[in-house]
Structure formats: structure tokens, C-alpha cells
């Protein structure tokens, strides 16, 4: 039945995922059996007792049957309680993180995920975690409610603006896992995705030390395009002149921009840097002031790469 499981559910990324699947399929088979009981009886009665010559007169006056009614009131309690207990048992496992878990701080905001490791390493949207070690996410939101969902780990938790929530997982195999936001949060909701890469412990340590040397072999402008995607810039800005939420970057470098509340500014290296660090300082007129700061979230060479990309967009 492995093939059936692989059709019905996403791949398993952890032992816990297998546990949830077992409960899922327990319910699946119980309800399938029950459905075919109901559908089968409906079809059988509909055919056998259809109105036809010889079966169109008065029918027997069967008003109730104590034994039968007691049976279908009490017997379903058994599978129902079984389902409840299994679901509860798994839930307890999911709620209590082991003490030795690696703790990662998560800040969710429209529309990106920001992570911080205990060592101070930070990342946006794409993170690495070691296999075989419990990871605990301690999460808070900067604006509205978001939700942290990794289907392959079968875990989900809402991320609230006013208090910390948490969840944990332990990946057992190397590979990549998709992270979704599953609490509706506006225009960029469906783009608020991330990637969790499971490394061997040695690879993970290396990644942590180099801070993720993504794009080291690329020219800065090319690296900038990758960052534009994975840092979530594209949820508000475009590279082709179309307006999503904020101004497009196409042909913007070196031009003079009119500011909200009067005045102008030249789109140069310093304005780009300032807009990343203090996005509310100078808003181009006609656009909402929704951007939040990237202070501490971008490395020097990443900022340079983004500037290089914008420069090249003629």
C-alpha cells in the first residue's frame, strides 16, 4: 500500500509525519467502510424496494426498533474514541519539544519569514537545519496573523502578533522542504513561502559558519536577481515596469523620484540602502508605506548585489 500512501499524502520528512499518516489512514479506512455501508444500503434499498407493480401499496408500519437503535447509537462510540485517542496522542508529541532542541527564532511579516539562529546567524525565507536533531521554532509576527506550515513534516502553527507560539520537528533525511504561510495575510499570502534544507550535521555546521555563501560564484547583478526572489522583494516590486504594490525597479536607477509630502530624491546607492534599512524615511509619492526594515537581515554583499541588479535594469 506504499504507492497508495504516496498518492494520498505528501512525502514524509520525519518520523512524526509517519505517525500522523497512521492516524490519517486509520480514519480513512474507518470512514471508507462507513461510507460504503451507507452508499451500499442506499443503492440496495433503492433497487430492491423501488416502486413497481406489486410494490406500490401500503407499506409496513415499522416505527422503531430498540435494539437496532441502541446499536447504531452506541457502537460508533468505539471507532470515534479510537480516533480521538490516536489524534490526541500524536498531538501531545507534536506540542512538547524535546529539551535538547535547537531553537530558532522566527519573525513573520508581510510577506516573508525571518529566522535567527542561537549563534546570531540570520536568514530570510531559506534556512538550513541539521538532520536527526529536534528543531524548535519560536515564532512571533510583526503585523497580522500568519501560519507556519511544512506539509512534509505534518506540522502547522499560527504565528501571532502579540505572543510567542512554537512548534518543533526532527527531520530524518537530507533534502528540501517547502514552507507555506497558511493564515490568509493579504496580497502576498500565496507568495509567502520558504525552503527548509536538511543537511548532514557537518554540512549544517559549515553553512552556519559561512552564513550561507549563496551566490558566491555569481556576478553581483545575477546574485541580486536571486535575492530579489528569495528575500521576497518580488511580492511588492517588479523588474519589468509593472506595479505590484511598490514602485518597479525597471529603469529607476539615477532617476529623480518625487516624494510623498514634497521634495525629491535621486535613486542612487544611498537611497537604496536607506530604503532597505529605514523604508519609511522617504516614500515615493503614490505608493503605500507598507515596507518593513531589512536592518540586520541582509549582509553587505547582498545589499551590493541588489544595488548592482537595480543599476543594470535599464
Amino acid at each position, binding site marked *: 500500500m506504499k504507492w497508495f500512501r504516496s498518492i494520498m499524502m505528501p512525502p514524509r520528512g520525519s518520523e512524526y509525519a509517519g505517525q500522523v499518516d497512521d492516524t490519517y489512514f486509520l480514519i480513512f479506512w474507518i470512514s471508507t467502510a462507513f461510507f460504503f455501508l451507507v*452508499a451500499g444500503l442506499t443503492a440496495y434499498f433503492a433497487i430492491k*424496494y423501488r416502486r413497481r407493480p406489486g410494490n406500490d401499496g401500503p407499506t409496513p408500519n415499522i416505527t422503531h426498533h430498540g435494539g437496532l437503535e441502541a446499536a447504531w447509537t452506541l457502537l460508533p462510540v468505539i471507532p470515534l474514541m479510537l480516533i480521538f485517542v490516536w489524534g490526541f496522542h500524536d498531538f501531545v508529541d507534536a506540542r512538547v519539544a524535546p529539551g535538547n532542541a535547537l531553537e530558532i527564532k522566527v519573525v513573520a511579516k508581510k510577506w516573508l519569514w525571518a529566522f535567527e539562529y542561537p549563534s546570531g546567524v540570520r536568514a530570510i525565507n531559506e534556512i538550513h537545519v541539521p538532520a536527526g536533531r529536534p528543531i524548535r521554532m519560536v515564532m512571533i509576527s510583526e503585523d497580522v496573523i500568519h501560519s507556519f506550515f511544512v506539509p512534509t513534516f505534518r506540522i502547522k502553527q499560527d504565528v501571532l502578533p502579540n505572543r510567542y507560539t512554537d512548534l518543533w520537528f526532527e527531520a530524518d533525511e537530507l533534502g528540501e522542504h517547502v514552507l507555506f504561510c497558511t493564515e490568509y495575510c493579504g496580497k502576498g499570502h500565496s507568495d509567502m513561502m520558504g525552503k527548509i534544507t536538511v543537511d548532514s550535521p557537518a554540512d549544517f555546521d559549515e553553512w552556519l559558519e559561512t552564513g550561507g555563501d549563496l551566490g558566491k560564484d555569481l556576478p553581483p547583478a545575477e546574485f541580486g536577481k536571486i535575492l530579489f526572489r528569495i528575500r521576497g522583494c518580488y511580492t511588492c516590486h517588479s523588474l519589468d515596469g509593472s506595479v505590484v504594490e511598490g514602485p518597479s525597479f525597471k529603469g529607476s536607477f539615477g532617476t529623480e523620484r518625487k516624494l510623498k509630502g514634497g521634495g525629491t530624491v535621486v535613486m542612487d546607492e544611498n537611497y537604496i540602502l536607506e530604503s532597505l534599512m529605514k523604508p519609511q524615511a522617504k516614500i515615493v509619492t503614490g505608493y503605500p508605506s507598507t515596507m518593513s526594515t531589512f536592518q540586520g537581515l541582509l549582509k553587505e554583499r547582498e545589499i551590493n548585489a541588489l544595488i548592482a541588479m537595480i543599476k543594470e535594469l535599464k
Partner: protein
Amino acid sequence: MGNSTVETPDLSLMAEALRREPPDSELNYLNAERGLWSWLTTVDHKRIGVLYIISILFMFFLGGMAAIVLRIELLTPERTIMSADTYNKAFTLHGAIMTFLVLVPSIPATLENFVLPLMLGAKDVAFPRMNLASWYCYIVGALVMMASLIFGGIDTGWTLYTPYSTETSGGVGLVLVGAFIVGFSSIFTGLNFIATIHKLRAPGLSWFKMPLFVWGMYATSLIQVLATPVLGITLLLLLMEKVLNVGVFDPALGGDPVLFQHFFWFYSHPVVYIMILPAMAIMSEVIPVFSRKTIFGYKAIAFSSMAIAGVGFIVWGHHMFVSGQSSLAATVFSFITFLVAIPSGIKVFNWLATMYRGSISFEAPMLYAISFLLLFAIGGLTGLFLGSLAVDVHLHDTYFVVAHFHYVMMGGSLMAFIAGLHYWWPKMFGRMYSEKWAAIACGLIFVGFNATFLTQFLMGARGMPRRYYNYLEEFQPMHVFSTVGSWFVLAGFLVMLTYLIASLRKKKADAPGNPWGARTLDWEETSSPPIAHNFHHTPVVTHGPYDFYPQESGR
């Protein structure tokens, strides 16, 4: 005897009554008075029912078109026909219309409004003017909600979760005010029907001789009266927060967003039962009539309605397993949720047992009733997945949930509404529709519905989140399949619209008083369509509502 003088008939009143008696049988509630004004000022429950049917079918059309447009957008993983912003507004519109303006009032305000006094042997509901006021509340509320479209629509989702709904721009305030007003139409209807059931039953119609439709609607009315005010209060608090900056739900103002979810679901879970109990009530009429057999387990069905109404109030937390509510609360809510499964199961078994050894015929109402039975079974059983804590954590806010509630709401509530509409259509308009086309429409809707939503269970379990404008490419084949299914549903409804309108265009009323051979007062004692004051004489109930067995004496 002391009161014999009171019993003495007042001759002048009698003469008056005789003058009003229709000169021929052609006169009925539809043509007794003429002109638009006579409709807009009517206090006849039958006419108000018809007004409601027209308005709700119009709203259903709007909400349905929004759904079709949404499914077209989802044909491709990126932009297909609209922007993300428009998509978000479209699904909000679809959800808000379908819940507040279609499903909640659908059966109570239309069919029950029309049928309840007929079933009870009454001339009208207890408070006819309040009944008309309820329709005006509905219309005004609906117009206010729709006015938000002029201000750019709203993009919060029908659930209006804070703090998103506090912060977002657009006409959220109007929707809140509109839903608040529509709430009153629901409360008026509920109050009215409770009073009617208590006070206006015909002689001989004791509580346990009432048709089960009335029992189901009684339970529904109780929920309407008890739960709707909570929604009203919640909407008012949210409005105060938006307009006056009083911090209740928005953490920026010192509020708690999860509190909103508690308030919201405290209404919106019972509202599921406002939608499904009337559906079950219709089933309990259609199944015995078309099986021509005594209902099995009358009291069990009546009491399970009341049990569902009661337990339905204490399961709201199962919408919030991942919201950050305490794990203990989640556990208790999960446990109680499984208890609700039992009374629902009882009803299904009772309907099946009613079919056993019956004489079953398959006119349109029965076809829709059987569709209900199968679709509701799927809807109910997939609820077990979502009631189970750990499994719900995985499935929450995915397409699995979307599919589940469409099976319950559309496969359940709406199918039963359509079954009821076909069942009482000859009574309401005195005209039969084409059985052949009705069967074709039912087939199209059934097949299309399953194609649309069975796929979504699979998609959801595989991790496709709901309310997603863009999605991963691996989900595209399933989205395309689902969208094509929605076209079959649309085709089915268009066929239905056509044959129902065709039946209305028939010049001559061709429906007999009791075309299905039912045993309740609405069929046995009234003409099709009924006269303006329902009965020529107050009927006396001498037999049960489902007495299809050989009678020893009389009929």
C-alpha cells in the same frame, strides 16, 4: 355553561367572512391581490417566502458566479485572468454571500416560511409584520454589504480575522454593518417560528404528531435566536475598533486577535447547524413520502435535532487547534466534536431504515435527497479527520477543509434546499416541472460537484493551502480537474433554472393538491397553490404525519 355566550357566533362577522370567500377555486395567494405594491407590503407568509426565494436565488447567482471566476483563475499557477487583489476580493465576496445571504436564510426564510403555517394548520405565522420586517432587514443588510463593492470591495475573507480586518482598507465597515442588519432578519425569523410552533398548532397536532420538518426547524430557530446576537456583538466590537480605535482584538491597540476567533466561531460554528438542521428536516419529509413509508425512529430524529443544536454550541474551538489556544482546550473541543457525530449518524441510519421495505419512487425531490445522503455522508465523515487533533494540524487551512465544508454546506445544505424546493414547488406555484430535465440537472450537479471537490480533498492532504492565488506547479492538474468539474455544476444549475422558469410560464396551474401523496396538512388540506388564508376551515389532525400503512378505519 359560563362561556356559552362567548361561543355564540357573531353573525355579522360570519357574513363578512362569507363575502371574502373566493368566488371560485381559481383565486389563490398569488393572484388574490395584484401589483408590485401588494407584494412589497404583504404580510402573507407565503408571499414573504416567495420574496425571499427570489432574493436568495439572486444572491446565489452572484455568489456562484464569483466561484466560477475563482476556479477559472486557478487554472494556472500564476496569474490567469485577475490580480491577486481581485482574487482575494472575489473569494471574500463568494464566502460572505454564500454564508450570510444564501445558506443561513435559505431554508428557514424561504421554504419554512412558506410551509410551516401550512404544516401546523395555521393561517399565518405568529407575527406576520415581524416576518415582513425580517425580509426588509435582509434586503437592507444585503444592499449595505454589496455597497462595499463600490468602495473597492473587501479582501479579508468571510471570516474577517483580526488584526488583518482592522488594518486593511476598503469597505470592511459596510460589510460589518450589513451583516449586523442581516443578523436581525435571522433573529426575527427564529423568534417568529418558535412562537408559531408553540402557539398556532391545529387541534389534534400534539408535539409528537408534528412533522419532523417542524422539529428540525424548531431546533434551528433556537440556535438562530441564541447564537446570532453573539455575531452581532462581535461585529459591533470590530466596528468600534475600526472606527473609534477601541482596542479589543488588535494587538496594536492592546487587544487579542485570538479573542476575535473565539467570538467569531462561537457564532459561526452553530451557524453550520443553522444550515444543516433544516436540511436534515427536509430529508425527514422527502424520504418517507417518496418511500411511502412511516418514518423510522420519529422520536430519535426529533431528539437528535435538539442534541445537535445543544452540542453544536460547545465545539467552536475545533476551528482553532493551531490558533494558539491552550492544548487542553483543544483536547476538550476535539473530544466533544466526536460526540456530535453520533446524533448525525443516528439520522442517517433512520433515513436508511425508512427506505427499508418502502415503495420508493424517484421524482426530483428524492433524487436530490439521495444526492444529499451520499454527499452529506462524505462531508460528515471527512469531519472526523478534522476533529482529530494531530491530523487537523496537518489539514487545517488547506483545501481539505475547503472540500469538507463544501460537502456539508453545498452537498448537504444546498442539495436539501433544492430537494425541498422541488418538493414544494407544485404547492408554491401550482405547476409541475419537467421530471426528465430535473433528473439531468441533478446528474450534472452531482457529477460536477464530486469532480470539483473530491479532488480538493486530495490536494489539501498533499499540502495545498487555501486562499492561495499562486500555487506550486505540482498542484496544477488537480486544480484544472476541479475547475472543469465546476463547469458541470454550472451547467446543471442553468438547466434547473430553465425548466423551473418553463414550469412557471405554463398558463394553467396543473399541479394537483397533493401530487406526492404526502400525509401532512400542507399537502392534504390545501390546494396548490393555497388560497390566501391557507385553509377554508381550521383543519383537525386525526393521523400522524407519516401514516402510510394500511388504515383500519377511514382513510
